[in-house]
């Protein structure tokens, strides 16, 4: 059996995937002014980052937006999925199909139509318009994640709860929600990441009152990147790793 071929192949794939990230992390501790040469270890870019008030504000804005967009879309998405799963109603298939349309349509189309809509109703571009836009593109992902979980759900569980004296509301709270909890969590995380690094839609629907991180970084590219972006990237990486481990930990705990 030749095993060197798949091994080499896999190694190459992982190098391609992770070298840029490793470079970014290493260079965030680089003392030199440029990204090309090594000037020894230093935390100066982290210091510079935290002194850059515009950047820090953009980061907090982005985190707050991602948090709220993920939470709102998880709430609406979970209820939508439950409705689609439990009830038969007119327009159910249309609703289901429309979710996929939102997911499949090019981001630029969504961005233009949302901008047109916001201008039409006279909505000030800022946090609210960003939130509405982000909830729109996160929603289908949450619905589909929760629906997938519900499709394998034992239909006699809600009946058992009702049979034992639970009202519909209490049954939903004590049986249905715990059963779809992993999907809610996954959907929330998906929404959070999608919102955090969205550029295209955000470019169109954000205003000067509420600057978010991806747009801030993008605007910096034009005047030349400073190594403090590396520091920022490293911080975001650590943050996502912590989030990922947290969610895994919750999932494992809930299974036990």
């Amino acid at each position, binding site marked *: 059996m030749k095993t060197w071929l798949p091994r080499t192949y896999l190694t190459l794939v992982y190098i391609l995937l992770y070298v840029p990230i490793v470079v970014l992390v290493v260079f965030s501790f680089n003392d030199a002014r440029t990204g090309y040469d090594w000037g020894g270890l230093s935390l100066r870019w982290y210091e510079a980052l935290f002194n850059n008030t515009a950047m820090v504000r953009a980061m907090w804005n982005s985190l707050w937006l991602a948090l709220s967009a993920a939470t709102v879309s998880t709430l609406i998405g979970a209820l939508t999925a439950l409705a689609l799963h439990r009830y038969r109603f007119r327009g159910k298939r249309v609703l289901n199909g429309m979710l996929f349309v939102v997911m499949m349509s090019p981001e630029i189309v969504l961005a233009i139509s949302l901008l047109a809509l916001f201008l039409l109703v006279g909505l000030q571009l800022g946090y609210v318009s960003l939130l509405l836009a982000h909830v729109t593109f996160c929603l289908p992902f949450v619905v589909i994640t929760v629906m997938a979980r519900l499709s394998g759900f*034992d239909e*006699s*569980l809600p*009946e*058992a*709860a*009702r*049979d*034992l*004296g*639970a*009202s519909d509301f*209490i049954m939903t709270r*004590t*049986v249905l929600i*715990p*059963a779809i*909890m992993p999907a809610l969590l996954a959907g929330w995380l998906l929404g959070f990441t999608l919102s955090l690094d969205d550029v295209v839609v955000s470019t169109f629907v954000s205003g000067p009152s509420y600057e978010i991180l991806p747009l801030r970084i993008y605007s910096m590219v034009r005047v030349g990147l400073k190594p403090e972006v590396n520091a920022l990237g490293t911080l975001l990486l650590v943050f996502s790793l912590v989030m990922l481990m947290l969610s895994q930990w919750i999932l494992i705990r*809930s299974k*036990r």
Partner: protein
Amino acid sequence: MKKTLLSLRELSKHFGDKTVLDALNLDILDGEFITLLGPSGCGKTTLLRLIAGFEHPDAGTITLDGTDLTQVPPEHRPLNTVFQHYALFPHMSVFDNVAYGLKMEKRPKDEIRQRVDEVLAMVQLQDFARRKPHQLSGGQQQRVAIARAVVKRPRLLLLDEPLSALDYKLRRTMQVELKRLQRELGITFVFVTHDQEEALSMSDRVVVLKGGLVQQLGTPREVYERPANLFTAGFVGETNLFPGRVLSQADDSISVDVLGFKRTLRRPGFKVQDGQPVHVLLRPEDIRVLDPDGDQGVAGKIVERNYKGSTLDSVIQLEDGTEVLASEFFDEDDPMFDYRLGEPVRVSWVDGWEWLLPEEAGEIADRELSADA
């Protein structure tokens, strides 16, 4: 005489244009173990779901001890269900599963703990209270499901094929355990199954269902020995069915031509006329397989033999091609007793052990159609 606990009147249920229950009437007595028996699609599960309140009848009423339950939602009915696949809450421990119903009643914590411990001890699971359902075997999950349902002390326990997911040996153990529980608790059990052996061995009364109608309601013995119609006869146990024709009648016996012989049989419960066709029913264990040299019975030959441990089951082909099932117990005097294939024998039965049924409407229509053609 026991009093009626649950009364079903003119209960009908349709799914689309399919009639599942057709104006069904049934009285369930207080404290009995009653089994709903029938093939799949006979309406037995639907009937159970109507009693539990998961489905609404299109017409008819459900009354429990004088209270009309027809419009009452499931959470307010004083009865509980054991589901086919147990439906244990996967994210809760065994204790929390069993305590769920009591928590819904908002019982004090001490009382919940005490009652759950009690019922877990009853099903011998007191050491498993902290486990999650997926850490239990099938039989243990089954017992949790029963404990969860009986901890609320319901008037009536509904069991939807609760043993169908267990292997044969465990199923036998659980049958015995269920009977014991029912005796100890004094709760009325409504048990759904398609397994006729299970129905006969466990029940006080059996309801045979087909096409949304009650075919027969009676004790296991009645249903087995005196089936009300051809369906019950064929569904419950193995049956030999011979066509016969009434020759003449006396006070408490009639003379019937069956398999070319004239036999004097007990007068059946239905009205007969001379010349009327009837069915003569014989269970395999009622058949006597005799020596081929005798002059009793009908001649035939063994075409199949099945060793069943306690019985020897054989199929005998008569000269006219009719196949007869016979089941004989091993005799102490002749433990090596056996047949070889093709061995000539004669077949008979003891007069009075047969059961007569009239020809049924469908058959008469069939015959008239073929006579017309």
